[in-house]
């Protein structure tokens, strides 16, 4: 137990040292941002931290890190730990929130929507905004798309990947689809989120309850 703890701390120190040496001059000593963006919000526009840190961000100053995959994993954990936890009190009732979640959110979030575990650490305001104005800021890798294929069928879902020859989609039933562009008549990107707005459908008390419930989904 003691040994394991020491090992853990040593690894954490490694990650901190790596971060200090290779990242802090752009992202700030505590991740507060500088030449690179703030890493303390717990929101990552590029999604998967491992991939971002491993490969860098094309066309920006964010370099591919020079470290082993294990180190990159540790760096990703370290970056997550830089996120400020939102500790503001919430008034909602988590059990009521759970019921609301099951009724309104769960089915979709378990097929096409993003995993909501940990989402509440980004703050109550963010969750509230996500519920009321889903299209405002799209979770990376979750852009909605609607594609008309040659036989007249329409496929709606999340755009998983795309190049000039094909497009990969998770459709609204959760099925993975890969379509060649040669067979596509029209691509509609005008509605960026699949999530409906709950403005006018959920009141403040219900939203507080949902936030309280989501906080427990760590």
């Amino acid at each position, binding site marked *: 137990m003691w040994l394991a703890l020491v090992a853990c701390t040593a690894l954490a120190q490694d990650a901190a040292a790596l971060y200090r040496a290779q990242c802090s001059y752009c992202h700030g000593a505590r991740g507060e941002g500088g030449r690179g963006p703030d890493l303390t919000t717990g929101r990552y526009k590029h999604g998967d931290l491992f991939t971002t840190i491993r490969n860098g961000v*094309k066309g920006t100053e964010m370099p591919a890190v020079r470290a082993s995959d294990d180190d990159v994993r540790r760096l990703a954990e370290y970056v997550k730990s830089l996120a400020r936890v939102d500790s503001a009190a919430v008034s909602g009732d988590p059990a009521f929130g759970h019921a609301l979640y099951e009724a309104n959110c769960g089915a979709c979030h378990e097929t096409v929507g993003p995993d909501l575990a940990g989402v509440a650490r980004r703050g109550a305001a963010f969750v509230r905004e996500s519920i009321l104005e889903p299209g405002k800021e799209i979770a990376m890798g979750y852009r909605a798309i609607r594609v008309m294929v040659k036989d007249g069928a329409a496929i709606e879902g999340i755009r998983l990947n795309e*190049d000039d020859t094909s497009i990969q989609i998770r459709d609204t039933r959760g099925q993975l689809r890969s379509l060649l562009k040669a067979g596509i008549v029209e691509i509609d990107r005008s509605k960026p989120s699949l999530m409906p707005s709950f403005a006018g459908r959920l009141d403040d008390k219900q939203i507080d309850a949902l936030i309280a419930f989501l906080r427990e989904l760590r």
Partner: protein
Amino acid sequence: MIRIALLIALTASAQVPYERLLKPEAGNWLMYSGNYSGWRYSALDLLTPANVRGLKVKWMYQARTQEKFETTPLVADGIMYLTRPENEVFALDAETGRTLWTYVHRNPERTFNCCGKVNRGLAILNNRLFMNTLDMHLIALDARSGRELWKVKMHDHEAAGGYASPGAPLALQGKVVVGMAGGERGVSGFLDGYDAATGKRLWRFNTIPQPGEANFGTWAGDSWKTGGASTWNSGAYDPELNLVYWGTSNPWPDYNGDFRKGDNLYSCSVIALNADTGKLAWYYQFTPHDLHDWDATQIPVLVDGLYQGKQRKLMAWPNRNGFYYLLDRATGEFLFAKNFVRQTWVKSFDAKGRPEVIPGNEPTPDGNTSVFPGVDGAANWMSHSYSPSTKLLYTFAREERRVFTKDEPRHPTTAPDAAVGRPFRRRPRFAPEESWGKVMAIDPLTGDTKWEHKVLSPPWSGVMATAGGLVFGGTLEGVVFALDARSGERLWHFMGNDRVYSSPISFISNGKQLLSLPVGDVLITFGLD
């Protein structure tokens, strides 16, 4: 057996004298741009619109690098020479991709590259290969063995905010011309000429006029001392005029011009230098007092043609700032400019080619989101291509929506490293659909667009036209493509599934036309069966 014998025989006599560089044979690729005119054109016509659909992967070279793989290989008499990051040189059998020798230059832990520890390639002359390094060395290798012949230090790489040298050198008769980077780090730019035999420096041209030199005084106060104006890509050469042409980078600091008022010569310019003396023949500044990091470090494209009834030596230049320019390359005279992507910053040009700038395009502390082209520009360092058979200029243009933020830069020499941070402001995000790429065919004499081929994302690949009537390139998603040079129709593609950050080359091996392009960290070579 026959092939082995052949390779050894060729290796022993692989002489690439200057005369061969003057008239490169179609089957080899002897310099970064393929020829001195910067055409990136293959005179091979074995691949055609009729047979290109049969192109297949012939071999791959695995660079195993996390850095961007930006090299342009050279091919001379059956041997391919290429660099992989940071500064390693490989000689490969061009038929199989098998390694013949390697050379490794180790840089110190900290180098001062702006955008990755990249290298874009080599130059060859006689039996020598030349590579410049991130820690500011220029190295000559024996092309047969990879043995180091000499290594000179061009400049202290740690001076000011830091110097580096990532572009491909240009070999001329008996000499090598080499540029440097550091426009984001408050350096003082130059272009150097070295003796190919000894490594002795023959000349240095300061891209920021020093006190006592012509055109001194276009920088407020002391700002000229740290003004950047680097020369980080490669150049072109006109042997008849004996002029070397090279583009220069942005002035420093990029997005904040407050303490460098003035035109900031010779930043964002093309300079024409006498190849023997390094003396300035003429310059033209595309973007006076740049505030948008619109480097003019594109490869110059030299074309001859009838302009307004007169046969002239011309220079065609799709620039990062969104305009296509035609200049007279003997005199530097501005002939015209025409935008080839959406642009918001120029109202008009006067007769000398000075832009009248539209106010409101300056970077702002909160981020100006209404400026076009974007930060990475309409063109960047990736090669354009010119085909003498279609008489068209091909460019892989970037239509991009971005944000320009005015920051408070630290001073490279007086502020300590700890002060590097810029206050970070949330950047607006744009939908991916607001940016895209397009291969364009432009009539260089008029600037008129003949066709456009749109792709999903703004590219980091250059293009190469061939005598067979094709234009090759690759996308950020890794789609390697062949377009019909006359119509822009896509005839063939290959899913490489990783970023393309380089420009293609073509050459002959065993009587077949091959095509090579780095995709991700793999150099893929294609050919017909």
